[in-house]
């Protein structure tokens, strides 16, 4: 369970979070979408204990992320956009180190490497891994401690389509096991029909909740302004899919400056 209540964060005079409030329940995947600078990553970093909010309260699994930071962090696992590891240690050494920090049996490290297809590079230094392999090692670390709350910040950007699909399936499986999964992403079309909830974040606030099974429609209508990446044809993406995505992005850019529709009864009911 994740609870955020009126989170505020400023860098100098710039307000990045303006009172974000939401709850993410166990057994669900909650998607956090929005344009660049909306405050998605900052919110996740506050939850992960990397940043201190200037105001408001955040709880992970019931633990305050500031006053009970260690307990909260014991309940979560975090995957950043581009995870970095000690460049001179091998994949297995990195996993074993984190297993030690989390009190996890070392035997689980090999299982995680197998799960993420990294068994063959287990003894390769992480400095020699490709971007996609580093992401997979990050995924292995995310799952290593079997934490009940999973936080993912723009995951899968370096992964090929097959592994991105695998990532979504894995998160779906973990959610079914009772975990709370929170994902921030720009790749809206890719995450359509994957999450249970989708929150649109803009200007440091939760603006509204979107239908997670109809994200391209929201995209199409300009509700979620331009942030998608157009996948190239080939490598698991058909030419038609790439064309559809490109057309969608063009429409989005056209509506990028459109004002958000006035709040409806449903959006007013959202927690603030």
């Amino acid at each position: 369970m994740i609870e955020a209540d009126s989170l505020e964060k400023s860098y100098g005079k710039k307000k990045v979070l303006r009172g974000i409030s939401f709850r993410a329940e166990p057994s669900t995947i909650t998607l956090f979408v929005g344009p660049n600078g909306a405050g998605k990553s900052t919110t996740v970093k506050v939850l992960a204990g990397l940043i201190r909010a200037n105001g408001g309260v955040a709880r992970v699994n019931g633990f305050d992320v500031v006053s009970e930071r260690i307990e909260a962090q014991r309940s979560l696992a975090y995957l950043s956009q581009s995870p970095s590891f000690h460049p001179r240690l091998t994949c297995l050494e990195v996993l074993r180190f984190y297993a030690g920090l989390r009190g996890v049996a070392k035997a689980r490290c090999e299982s995680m490497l197998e799960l993420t297809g990294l068994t063959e590079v287990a003894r390769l230094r992480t400095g020699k891994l490709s971007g996609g392999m580093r992401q997979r090692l990050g995924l292995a670390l995310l799952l290593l401690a079997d934490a009940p709350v999973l936080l993912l910040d723009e995951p899968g950007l370096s992964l090929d389509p097959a592994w991105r699909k695998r990532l979504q399936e894995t998160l779906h499986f973990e959610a079914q096991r009772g975990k709370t999964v929170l994902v921030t992403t720009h790749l809206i079309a890719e995450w359509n029909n994957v999450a249970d909830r989708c929150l649109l974040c803009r200007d440091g606030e939760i603006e509204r909740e979107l239908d997670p099974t109809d994200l391209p429609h929201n995209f199409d209508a300009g509700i979620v302004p331009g942030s998608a990446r157009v996948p190239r044809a080939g490598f698991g993406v058909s030419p038609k899919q790439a064309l559809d995505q490109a057309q969608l992005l063009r429409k989005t850019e056209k509506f990028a400056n459109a004002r958000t529709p006035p709040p409806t009864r449903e959006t007013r009911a959202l927690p603030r």
Partner: protein
Amino acid sequence: MNVLGAQFNSAGMSIPRALLGREFRAALINRYFQVFCALSLLGGVTASLFSEDANAAGFLVLQIALYFVSLFALLAGVSSAQGEREEWQLLFTQPVPRTAYVIGKFLALFSIFGAVLLLLFLPALISGSAPRSLALLYLQTLLLAAAFLSLGLAAGFLAHDRAQAIIIGVSAWLVLLVGVDLIALFAARWPVFQNWPDVWVAVLMLNPLDSFRIEALFALQQIPAEAANKTPLANWWIEHAAAWFALISIFWSAALITIAGWRLNRWEE
């Protein structure tokens, strides 16, 4: 949730073991340590082979410890602190107090220095130098290394990148090695120091390198404490030089580790 909660046991001893293990592994492939091992052995063998008598070997080892061990300890600390800077984001989401990373690094590097310094001292011991004075010098060199490891860690954690960390660390090392002495020499004629020479002595006493130099010189040369009986404080210092050096190096180490821990606790993405 009970199944999930089963993982939530206390990590117990596995955290310190993981932190130390990682540092040992990283040190084995650290170029500073590889060069330090080679130079320590070379220095130790050279001191033994080319010294005219057993005491001279100890004196040579003292010079190596003063200039070379302090610098390598500093560089090892900087390298360790900066080596995983890009990983801080991932490290600091783990359920471990950030100060534990600093303490873990310090303890691991201190242990490694303890082992590597044997390469410097063993040849002199084998060649017949006085074992008692060499053992004392070994322990004091280790304490000196601890102070400069801490300085390196503090510089490494305070700086924004490796280059800045090296500039801060090496500048501090130069100030302690020669800067303080030059300033003290220049300031010795000032009325304040002429009237209160103990203040002048106190400045030197607070510098771990001067403290180490004075203690080791007096111990190796077997100079009686009365020889320096110029001021009450100087007299007290020479009489308690070994204890004072231990105290001041532990104080420097603790203060610098506290600064490094404070910096890490304030770090934000």
